[in-house]
């Protein structure tokens, strides 16, 4: 649910939260076996997105910008699914998928090669922005656009935080 001022916190999936809530630095390991519907696509993109969560949560300006956002969305990079749980602007959990019958407010699908290009320190034309990649046909957005558009700067800047600082390494799978 897209939170608005004065609304109640999102009561999303208490069972899931209890089982899989992930918090980097808490010392608590992610217990994959605890979730029976967990898929087989755990890749090293998960580590990238965990790092992304750190970057988001350590950026008070971005968290403030997203303070009215509490929802879960699905990021599909190539064949890999990750559910990203936002709580009041914090990227509270990154959950690898697929997870059977799990819903999300919207899905951003980016082809793997396009994601790699997007993550370069200085992307080439066409790969610098989500909507540019959508126009190129290498990315797609599905689902409820409202929370995404209403908080577009927040989500754009979140995605941009996956960008590499140098050209030495590559992100994703």
């Amino acid at each position, binding site marked *: 649910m897209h939170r608005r001022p004065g609304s109640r916190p999102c009561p999303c999936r208490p069972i899931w939260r209890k089982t899989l809530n992930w918090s980097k630095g808490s010392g608590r390991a992610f217990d994959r076996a605890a979730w029976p519907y967990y898929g087989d696509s755990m890749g090293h993109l998960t580590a990238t997105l965990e790092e992304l969560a750190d970057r988001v949560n350590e950026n008070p300006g971005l968290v403030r910008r997203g303070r009215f956002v509490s929802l879960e969305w699905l990021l599909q990079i190539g064949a890999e699914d990750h559910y990203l749980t936002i709580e009041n602007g914090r990227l509270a959990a990154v959950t690898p998928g697929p997870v059977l019958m799990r819903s999300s407010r919207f899905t951003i699908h980016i082809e793997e090669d396009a994601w790699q290009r997007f993550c370069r320190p200085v*992307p080439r*034309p066409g790969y*610098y*922005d989500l*909507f540019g990649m959508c126009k190129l046909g290498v990315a797609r957005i599905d689902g409820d656009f409202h929370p995404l558009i209403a908080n*577009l700067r927040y989500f*754009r800047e979140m995605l941009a935080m996956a960008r590499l600082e140098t050209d030495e390494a590559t992100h994703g799978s």
Partner: protein
Amino acid sequence: MVARLEEATGRYVNLMVQGRLYRIYFEEAGRGIPLLCLHTAGAEGSQYRHLLNDPDITRNYRVIAFDMPWHGKSLPPVGYHLEEYRLTTDLYVATIMAVCQELELEQPVIMGCSMGGRIVLQLALAHAPELRAVIGLESADHQEPWYDTDWLHLPDIHGGEVSAALVSGLVAPQSPDEYRWETLWGYQQGGPGVFKGDLHFYRADSDYRDRIGNIDTTQCPVYLLTGEYDYSCTPEDTLRTAARIKGAEATIMEGLGHFPMSEDPQQFRRYIIPILDKIRG
């Protein structure tokens, strides 16, 4: 810090367009050939402030940038609260030509960006004898839409925030942060529904593909410049357009996006000054 008065001055002109009175704000600097600058959709003339303060340009050109009605410091017409703003080709051309007439601009060069880059093609077609040349920045005879403009004017989404966020990806990654955010500020402070109203012209009333082949560049030279990072008006859109206009010159600008004059003025002047020198002859 020492206060510095810029050369540019701002004034208002009251003029009639299609039977309605408009109070229009404009800034100008320099002397010589009139260079009338048209801002992008949903923005304002201050996008050209760097040209207005560039002595290499103002030495030979009288640079003028005005805010379209509904934009910046130009007011909407009386009764605006009762209507939906929707710019059309006819209204846009009439407004520009009224400004030229009231400011007594003789044989001006008209330079526009994005929707301004689109309308200069129509001006070259319909008003060639009155113009010295046109420069289209991020200009094409048509382009494919990449989002639904209905999102720009809703009661529960901040129009300025969403407009700026949508266009922010059109600024090249190399552009300095200072100018990136100044460019976006123009969008963040737009009036309700104004960006969307401009895009009515851009999306629904300016497909010029069937007519630009009739532009006579011997009468009105056409120069098109597009940033390589512009995925709204792509370099391919501009090159295709230039190929349809006999004698048109097209340049793809490296390291620039959809707002070359405001997002990276130093990089832009590398491209625009040679064009202005050429027009001056």
